[in-house]
């Protein structure tokens, strides 16, 4: 079920109301049933895959806890193999098959392994990682195994964050599933407020930007460098609003029932460096990779070349996590290289700029970081490496062919383009403030301002929302 669908407008109040009306001890199954319903609205049969993951990790958790030494490790490995195996089969089989096929055929040899005609189960990478974090935490003895299968299933399937995160940890979500929440006016109002902000970001900004981005990126050959640049700026806004919009709806929906999910974004485009960016963007994923891959590899407490290798491999895998395509792999590698370059050149920059504390220096870094990220987004959005190269060559003026931005604006209707750009710019201005307000770091000037702001979000969604069948970008991962 999509958050931006009429079904969800019915589903959400029914589930929330039902949750509070039921006695505490019955709430878990109500939420589990609702989560199953939510997931099965996509491709019902894929619930079986989820069921398999849940069964394996539930059993693994108990068996890891019961055993010590080698056996304990064996059960962890079994859990990892099962989870990664499912992920590899559904997500990466065709990619690997195509890549191997290209190499073999390139060598002049025949290659006839057919592709699998399967749809990627929605949110597979998210719930696989969430489930894995449980078995790893049990193995590390930081988490007691969950003996109630239904509650564990709910931990993996909790509907607000099931298909696109935040990727939760058992210490946060599993613990809360055992807690009793009474209805609380402030918390519910706060949750609804965050949901409204999420819907605004998705419908009014992300999808409007997306319509323009799609036109350019589906056929970059037809557009000139300026148009490609504007489209990439819009994509940067689209992907942030799309993903953080989903997260806001998820966190808001969970909060109305009392659950606090992880913070997943902290105004990432205000970052002054790439490492800061990754501390503010998709925090639940970057911290997952940090805790379960980067640190076990040795983190930065190793020889310098090994440290670079650790950074690079983590980002390469992070790219691959996003999608089974070379564009994502190169995107991940690029971010790895950014980080390594930042470390290598740090002494050099320090010598030039010293410890400058002036505000403009901070803004210069923000500007520079944003544009490095922007280059990465070209790879992330392009349909192939060839398309990405074409866009870069257009940016650099090496390829001047293609229609102008004015042509694209005319094709869209100037008013539609102006409204999109207006909301995109407005968002950039107000996002840092609203983000603090949503996270309750600052208060609204007055109650009436608060109400008017929420009403404004509803009206903007109604009048300027982009409607149609648009998925959240991160659902595909």
């Amino acid at each position: 079920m999509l958050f931006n669908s009429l079904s969800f407008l019915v589903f959400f109040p029914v589930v929330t109301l039902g949750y509070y009306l039921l006695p505490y001890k019955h709430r878990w199954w109500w939420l589990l049933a609702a989560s199953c319903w939510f997931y099965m609205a996509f491709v019902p049969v894929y619930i079986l895959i989820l069921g398999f993951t849940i069964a394996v990790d539930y059993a693994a958790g108990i068996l890891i806890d019961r055993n010590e030494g080698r056996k304990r490790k064996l059960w962890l490995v079994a859990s990892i193999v099962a989870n990664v195996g499912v992920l590899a089969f559904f997500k990466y089989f065709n990619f690997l098959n195509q890549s191997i096929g290209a190499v073999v055929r390139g060598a002049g040899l025949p290659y006839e392994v057919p592709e699998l005609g399967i749809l990627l189960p929605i949110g597979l990478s998210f719930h696989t990682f969430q489930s894995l974090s449980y078995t790893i935490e049990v193995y590390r003895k930081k988490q007691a195994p969950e003996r109630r299968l239904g509650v564990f299933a709910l931990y993996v399937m909790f509907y607000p964050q099931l298909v696109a995160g935040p990727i939760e940890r058992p210490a946060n979500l599993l613990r809360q599933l055992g807690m009793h929440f009474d209805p609380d006016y402030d918390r519910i109002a706060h949750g609804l407020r965050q949901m409204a902000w999420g819907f605004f970001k998705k419908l009014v900004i992300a999808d409007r930007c997306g319509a323009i981005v799609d036109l350019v990126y589906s056929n970059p050959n037809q557009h000139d460098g300026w148009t490609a640049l504007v489209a990439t700026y819009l994509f940067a806004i689209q992907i942030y609003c799309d993903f953080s919009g989903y997260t806001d709806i998820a966190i808001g929906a969970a909060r109305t029932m009392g659950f606090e999910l992880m913070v997943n974004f902290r105004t990432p485009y205000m970052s002054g460096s790439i490492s800061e960016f990754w501390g503010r963007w998709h925090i639940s994923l970057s911290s997952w990779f940090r805790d379960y891959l980067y640190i076990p590899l040795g983190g930065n407490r190793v020889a310098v070349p090994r440290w670079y290798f650790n950074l690079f491999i983590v980002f390469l895998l992070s790219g691959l996590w996003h999608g089974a395509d070379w564009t994502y792999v190169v995107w991940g590698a690029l971010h790895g290289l950014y980080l390594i370059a930042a470390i290598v050149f740090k002494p050099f920059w320090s010598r030039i700029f010293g410890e400058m504390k002036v505000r403009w220096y901070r803004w210069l870094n923000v500007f520079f970081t944003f544009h490095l990220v922007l280059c990465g987004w070209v790879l992330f959005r392009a349909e192939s490496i060839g398309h990405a190269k074409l866009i870069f060559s257009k940016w650099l003026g090496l390829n001047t062919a293609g229609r102008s931005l004015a042509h694209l604006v005319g094709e869209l209707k100037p008013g539609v383009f102006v409204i999109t750009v207006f909301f995109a710019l407005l968002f950039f201005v107000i996002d840092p403030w609203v983000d603090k307000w949503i996270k309750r770091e600052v208060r609204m000037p007055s109650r009436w301002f608060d109400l008017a702001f929420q009403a404004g979000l509803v009206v903007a969604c109604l009048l300027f929302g982009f409607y149609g069948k648009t998925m959240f970008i991160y659902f595909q991962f």
Partner: protein
Amino acid sequence: MAILIRILRRALLVGLIAVLAYVGILFVLCKVKVGANALVYRSSDVYNLKGGNTYRKFLEYDPAAHYDVIVIGSSHAYRGYDPRIFREAGISMFNLGTSGQTPVNTYAILKEYITKANTGMVLLDCYENAMGMEGLESAADLSQNITSDAAVLRMFAAIHDPRILNMFTIRKIMANEPAAYVDSFYVDAGFSTKTDSVKGVVDYGLDLTLELGEGQPEYLVRCIRYCQELGIPILLVTHPLPHAGNHPRHAAFHNVIDSVAKATEVEYMDYAFDHGLPLDDRNHFYDHNHFNQAGVAIFNPKLIADLRAKGYFSQ
């Protein structure tokens, strides 16, 4: 309970402010003109201006009169069935076809404009391109031009797209505004004609496969059932398509419509590629699949003759 009441009170307050702001903003967008038209038409690519074929036909349509035949459907309908030819054959006909009309839209029109007293039979033109849409394009046209508010709300309820609510509000705000343009090809009784013929290269969409809009076959069934409940005979028709058209796609479409026809026990007369008429792709069409007047003049007498042969209009 107290918390629920507080939440509801807050929601009501937010809702009230939202409604005031919503109407206020739309009012300003409708009243402020940029160039010849109101600003609201520049804010989205789906809002239609008032005027054109649909506006004229619904002004002209008299629900109190009786028509032997009501033709309904998409652009194929209002460009392919000429009331003058029917009139010459002694049959009164009104054409309620409108641009991009899908069964979802057709159903709303049938519910509001068709009665046993004013309609002898319904002839529903089925066209794959129209049935591939969700019904929003047609709702944009109908919402500004038809006379029934209920029909617009009915489409909103069926399509679930908030933009139709916006269209409805624009319709109410612009109610006293005159039509913004006229359809110079409009003839009468809902029919528009074109005399151009095909020139140059035409894209017949040969690479397209059949994709039907969500719920469209179900709404086609609803349209048929509604007429049957009223006791009005209903026929499904597809008018001739150019020989160079997409045959496999139409074959798939034929199967869908044929199965609906069989399930609802109505007749489906598919003239798409099987008509035995001396039609050619350039002289009898004005684009990739719409008839010009020369094509209509060949097809309509054949249709009337076939209907008579089947026993219609015998009294």
